[in-house]
């Protein structure tokens, strides 16, 4: 990666800000404003010639993070050999002190006079049109899985530590030794899936890279040390990429033994410090015991620790495994749900270098296309504010998953239409009907409800279905010819969050025996996390119905994905069973309980809205 980083650093159209952190992002597609903290380096990178004289005299010795703690560094150091810019950094947390100067030796020996103890963090701002999120990954820390003895036995190391030990630029200059006696080990064991595919520790996903990394390591060892024996303990070897199977076969031909089964117990011989591994070989069904000089834990990858912060800055959401959620898993795997934001690499999902490079290229291409177009097309389903009806409460801004509504206390909110995706959550939240979602207005939806329930409402199950998942789930049930009761009547909204309390109550007022609100599963929400507002709303409605003496069971909530035709049909059967239990008297009582106040209120509000919308686009 070194030469690539140098190319980036020298490119006339790329400004490389290293040792910097994004503090805030505001704006929207094409008009982002990014606030960046340039951390104090205390060394001028323009002047420093990396002569290393400062590090030679520095008295502070600390574990080197880049060498996984297997080597040491000084308080003034180059983070890693190919760092760009190739300049020293003074870590103030490690330095003996500069106010007053406790040591000052580095500055004394620096002929370039590039060390400045008064250097301070700097906040800079940049205007950008698109953002590519490429924040990488963290590696699983196996200390919590003490079954493998990582915290107890020195000769149990992780795959990352192995990389440093075998690397020519590592702490042992590439001479592979084991930590306890600094002798070259003869028998190495590799344990796969440490921190991956393990639901018990909350990491059920496959880390994607560990199998091939271990296969590569076994080939490397076989090449460097032909007398060494390698054994790999695995659940499944996932060698699915181009030439991967070939590598796997070469590893086996080179003498690596692959045993299907993960170790159950690991002990250390107190004399030799060798490791005794007990494992059930699931291929033979026998319990085996193996002795190794060293054991390498093939650790999985985890979402980077900064993911939550970036998620907040760019209004992104996460999948259940903690990585960023893409706009669409198949059709828009590069795009974030927030327009103008793209993903590259691990932060979206575990992937190898090749896939990361592909995704990075695609992200660059997508953002290039966006910026070169100079203009964007917005769907005609965005929202707008009716100022005459607005009470300036700001509720709309607080629920917008895209941050597309700008509001300050005492001011009218403003919808940034370029950022609005059209979920309609704001419109359903607004108590004063001051937000209109184009083509999915309250009036239009209420009119649909009334029309559907105008005739024999007691025979119908009223369904609100979101455009992307549950409506498509209904389609799937249809095209799959799955039978389900024909009593349901569906009103489509873009998101389940568009369904307001008033719409549900209007359906009951019109005589609906059962109302079903359905949307995407949590992980599939097409509007980041708008359907969480649906849950809150339905929860409030259940409580309200209870208070009004209406059975809350008559309001149902279901998450149905586009592929779940079977589930759609099953839910329709279930709600039909519920419908049969609702009597005419119960419906009449419900209508009576809901009749008075809300209707008057809505009439007044809609009159206000109609009046205001005459003068609004």
């Amino acid at each position, binding site marked *: 990666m070194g030469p690539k980083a140098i190319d980036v650093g020298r490119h006339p159209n790329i400004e490389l800000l290293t040792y910097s952190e994004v503090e805030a992002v505001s704006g929207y597609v094409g008009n982002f404003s990014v606030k960046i903290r340039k951390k104090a380096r205390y060394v001028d990178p323009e002047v420093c010639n990396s002569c290393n004289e400062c590090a030679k005299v520095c008295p502070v010795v600390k574990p080197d993070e880049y060498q996984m703690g297997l080597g040491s560094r000084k308080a003034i150091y180059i983070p890693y050999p190919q760092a760009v810019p190739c300049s020293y950094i003074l870590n103030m947390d490690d330095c003996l002190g500069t106010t007053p100067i406790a040591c000052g030796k580095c500055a004394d020996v620096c002929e370039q006079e590039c060390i400045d103890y008064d250097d301070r963090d700097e906040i800079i701002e940049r205007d950008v049109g698109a953002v590519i999120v490429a924040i990488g990954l963290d590696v699983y820390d196996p200390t919590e899985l003490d079954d493998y003895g990582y915290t107890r036995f020195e000769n149990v190391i992780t795959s990352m530590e192995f990389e440093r030990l075998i690397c020519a630029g590592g702490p042992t200059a590439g001479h592979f030794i084991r930590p306890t006696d600094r002798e070259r080990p003869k028998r190495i064991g590799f344990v796969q899936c440490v921190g991956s595919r393990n639901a018990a520790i909350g990491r059920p996903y496959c880390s994607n890279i560990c199998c091939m990394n271990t296969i590569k390591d076994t080939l490397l060892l076989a090449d460097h040390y032909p007398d060494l024996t390698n054994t790999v303990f695995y659940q499944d070897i996932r060698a699915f990429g181009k030439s991967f199977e070939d590598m796997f076969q070469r590893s086996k031909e080179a003498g690596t033994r692959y045993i299907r089964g993960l170790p159950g117990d690991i002990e250390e011989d107190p004399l030799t410090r060798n490791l005794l591994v007990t494992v059930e070989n699931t291929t033979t069904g026998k319990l085996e015991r193996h002795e190794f000089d060293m054991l390498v834990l093939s650790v999985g990858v985890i979402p980077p620790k900064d993911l939550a912060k970036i998620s907040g800055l760019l209004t992104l959401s996460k999948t259940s495994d903690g990585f960023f959620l893409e706009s669409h898993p198949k059709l828009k795997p590069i795009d974030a749900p927030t327009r103008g934001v793209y993903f590259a690499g691990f932060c979206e999902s575990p992937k190898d270098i090749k896939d990361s490079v592909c995704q990075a290229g695609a992200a660059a291409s997508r953002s290039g296309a966006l910026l070169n177009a100079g203009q964007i097309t917005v769907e005609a389903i965005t929202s707008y504010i009716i100022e005459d009806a607005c009470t300036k409460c700001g509720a709309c801004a607080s629920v917008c998953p895209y941050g597309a509504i700008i509001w300050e206390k005492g001011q009218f909110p403003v919808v940034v239409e370029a950022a609005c995706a059209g979920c309609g959550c704001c419109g359903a939240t607004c*108590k004063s009907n001051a937000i209109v979602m184009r083509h999915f207005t309250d009036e239009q939806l209420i009119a649909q409800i009334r029309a559907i329930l105008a005739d024999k409402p007691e025979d119908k199950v009223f369904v609100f279905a979101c455009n992307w998942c549950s409506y498509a789930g209904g389609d799937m049930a249809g095209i799959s010819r799955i039978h389900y009761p024909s009593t349901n009547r569906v009103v489509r909204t873009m998101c389940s969050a568009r369904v307001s309390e008033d719409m549900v109550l209007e359906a009951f007022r019109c005589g609906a025996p059962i109302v079903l609100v359905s949307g995407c599963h949590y992980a599939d929400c097409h509007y980041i996390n708008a359907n969480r507002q649906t849950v809150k709303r339905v929860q409030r409605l259940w409580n309200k119905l209870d208070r009004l003496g209406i059975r809350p069971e008559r309001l149902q909530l279901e998450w149905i994905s586009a592929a779940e035709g079977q589930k759609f049909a099953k839910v329709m059967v279930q709600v039909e069973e519920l419908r049969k239990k609702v009597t005419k008297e119960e419906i009449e009582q419900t209508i009576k309980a809901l009749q008075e106040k809300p209707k008057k209120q809505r009439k007044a509000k809609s009159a206000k809205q109609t009046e205001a919308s005459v003068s609004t686009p």
Partner: protein
Amino acid sequence: MTKKESFRCMMCGYEFEEPVEPGEDKERTCPMCRSNSIRHMKKRAVKDKTGESDE
């Protein structure tokens, strides 16, 4: 701090308890019928940011 709280399935009526973590973002499903109509029974009437309340 994780706390056990009561839930009721509005589809089949099954009542159950589940740990709830502050700020969790979890899709709930009935352990009996797999429905998502899960009512949080101990939810107090609290005004949220939207100004809407249970009461």
